[in-house]
């Protein structure tokens, strides 16, 4: 079954957003965190004279890969296998989870350490592992916070961005059963370190996601800030990596482009502190068994729609989230998906063949800040409009359809528009006070609940022109 976390069961965006807007602490945390990352990003992007060229290059590489995805995926499979890796193909979330569980159970293992794998949140791997009697430990600090708190990620790069330090301290002290815990960042990371080190040294199965899978070498690349990822991909005896099929890049040399764009866009760093790239297995060094699971889970249906295909260009940097004025108000949970913000609004419904999450393409004022920030130049506003169109074609609510048809009829001819203006002027009479409309029924009531509307004045411009200038 194709699944994007629990998005199919999530409430509509306006409902979830309303809930989020009521949480003052969450809004404060999200505002502060996005502000910090945005400022850092702006300063390190500003120092790149060829930033726009890099964006163009990245867009072209991705475009090329998506046009020849079949070729590059098989090339990756061949090269990875030649280096000693095992490549598995998963049609959907359930199949991917099944493959992973079978591998782990085949070795009679009961625990797995995980890092950098939002894609496994997409497939809901942890729930599947747990029901198969396997205990997953998240080792990325933010993912650990989410796991310990039975929480959901609210940002693509900074999953626990909605939590502040005080909340994390309380969580650690309670779940790690610590008698004392200081309030400083060093205290919290020291607690996490003690908690995780023991797992790194004990658990024999590692599990990771991938930022890039390189076709011409069969290598996998993960970038991170903490070094916990490096632990996960080097210490265990066996490593399993889950990769969405769109993460393929043609060659090692293409990393030049992406490793300049990604850290700057994601965390405002010039370079990630840890860049791990590995190719198959090597005797006596690192994991001695390596599996790659290539995941479709709706990606090929996105690929089939030429108008929105570039959604798959995404390198999961989260810059569009930080730039988005909607995300900055609501945080990520309102999007009901592991992928939040503008990219989530286009990716989540498409992965599910537009069968779920169809309120998301409307969760944008189309301000364009996401497109401006996107390091691979995904024209998100354009795709949002395209998806709205697909929703309308599949059947929008009757009231909206009638209103839009009526408006289009009026706009078809100036004399019809004049009549519509006269009707609006008459219809507003019961509601107009001092040139304002303060309380309207129907859908416009959503406007007037918090905002005035100006009343329709007694004379339209075209009437004034006709009266004054007498011709037209």
């Amino acid at each position, binding site marked *: 079954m194709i699944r994007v976390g629990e998005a199919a069961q999530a409430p509509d965006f306006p409902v979830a957003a309303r809930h989020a807007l009521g949480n003052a602490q969450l809004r404060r945390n999200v505002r502060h965190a996005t502000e910090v990352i945005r400022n850092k990003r702006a300063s390190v992007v500003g120092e790149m004279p060829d930033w726009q060229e890099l964006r163009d290059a990245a867009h072209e590489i991705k475009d090329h890969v998506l046009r020849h995805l079949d070729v590059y995926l098989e090339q990756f499979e061949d090269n990875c296998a030649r280096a000693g890796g095992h490549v598995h193909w998963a049609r959907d979330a359930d199949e991917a989870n099944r493959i992973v569980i079978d591998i782990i159970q085949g070795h009679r293992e009961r625990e797995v350490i995980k890092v950098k794998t939002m894609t496994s949140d997409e497939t809901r791997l942890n729930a599947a592992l747990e029901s198969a009697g396997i205990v997953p430990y998240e080792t990325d600090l933010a993912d650990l916070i989410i796991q310990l708190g039975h929480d959901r990620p609210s940002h693509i790069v900074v999953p626990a961005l909605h939590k502040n330090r005080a909340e994390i301290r309380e969580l650690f002290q309670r779940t790690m059963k610590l008698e004392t815990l200081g309030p400083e960042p060093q205290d919290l990371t020291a607690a996490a370190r003690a908690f995780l080190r023991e797992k790194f040294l004990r658990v024999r199965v590692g599990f990771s996601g991938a930022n890039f899978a390189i076709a011409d070498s069969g290598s996998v690349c993960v970038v991170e800030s903490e070094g916990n990822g490096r632990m996960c991909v080097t210490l265990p005896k066996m490593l399993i990596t889950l990769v969405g099929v769109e993460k393929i890049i043609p060659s090692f040399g293409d990393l030049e482009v992406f490793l300049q764009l990604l850290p700057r866009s994601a965390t405002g760093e010039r370079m990630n502190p840890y860049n791990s790239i590995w190719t198959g297995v090597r005797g006596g060094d690192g994991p001695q068994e390596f599996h790659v699971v290539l995941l479709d889970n709706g990606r090929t249906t996105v690929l089939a729609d030429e108008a929105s295909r570039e959604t798959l260009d995404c390198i999961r940097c989260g810059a569009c989230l930080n730039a988005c*004025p909607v995300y900055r108000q609501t945080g990520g949970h309102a999007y009901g998906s592991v992928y939040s913000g503008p990219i989530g609004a286009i990716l989540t419904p498409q992965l599910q063949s537009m069968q779920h999450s169809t309120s998301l393409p409307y969760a944008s004022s189309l301000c364009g800040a996401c497109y401006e920030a996107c390091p691979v130049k995904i024209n998100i506003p354009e795709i949002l*409009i395209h998806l709205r169109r697909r929703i309308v074609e599949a059947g929008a609510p009757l009231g909206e359809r009638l209103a*839009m048809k009526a408006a289009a009829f009026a706009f078809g001819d100036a004399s019809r528009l004049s009549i519509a203006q006269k009707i609006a002027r008459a219809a507003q009479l019961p509601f107009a006070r001092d040139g304002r409309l303060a309380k309207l029924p129907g859908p416009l009531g959503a406007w007037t609940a918090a905002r005035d509307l100006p009343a329709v004045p007694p004379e339209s411009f075209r009437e004034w022109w006709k009266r004054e200038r007498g011709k037209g």
Partner: protein
Amino acid sequence: MRISLFITCYNDTLFPETGKAVVRVLERLGHEVEFRSAQTCCGQMHYNTGYASEALSIMRHFLRVFDDAELICIPSSSCVAMIREHYPKMADEIGDPAIRRHVDALLPRVFEFSELLVDKLGVTNVGAYYPHTVTLHTPCHALRALHVRDQPIRLLRAVGGLQFVPLPREDECCGFGGTFAVKNADVSVAMLADKIGCIRETKAEVCAATDNSCLVHMGGGLGRQQAGIRCVHLAEILASAETPAEQAKR
């Protein structure tokens, strides 16, 4: 020059004063203004909400009406963005090269009001007088689609008696977004609250913009708060001139 005014549907209906102001400014500068009464709308609302075929028929109507216009002035940045960004794509999509040629021929003659004054007509001082403290909101479409940011500032700075105060966080959306303001009213209002905070911070009496759609949103929120700050279209500020009494006082 003979300038054809595309007033836009909502200015026509809700903000006739903006249209009159555009006419006054252009005529004061010695241009001839025409108003083609067959005009209606650009199709933006339909297009952005997903009603592409309705938007297409509105586009066809626009092309017919303005086919032979010398210059088209539009006092709304989002409508200009609609025409400039989406008309070519819409024409391509129906696969009719004649329509595409028609669009391509029209686009170089389409200007947003402040863009027309500064970039096309080369004017920054339009002889206006407006003794108020004014801040400027830059609509997202002006900023990111038209790259019209400095033109209105230059025009405002040349207005007699006007004190210009820059708006903090000027690149942030006010939360209007067309049908977004109704479909996601709560988020829209939260965005508006931030924008209003920035406007109030400037202590300006007036907030100007090149688009009445942002202004109706910000003005609607400021009005509900009885904030005592007016939202005024740039054209109306540029149309204001000193009265003889004011001149005598100076």
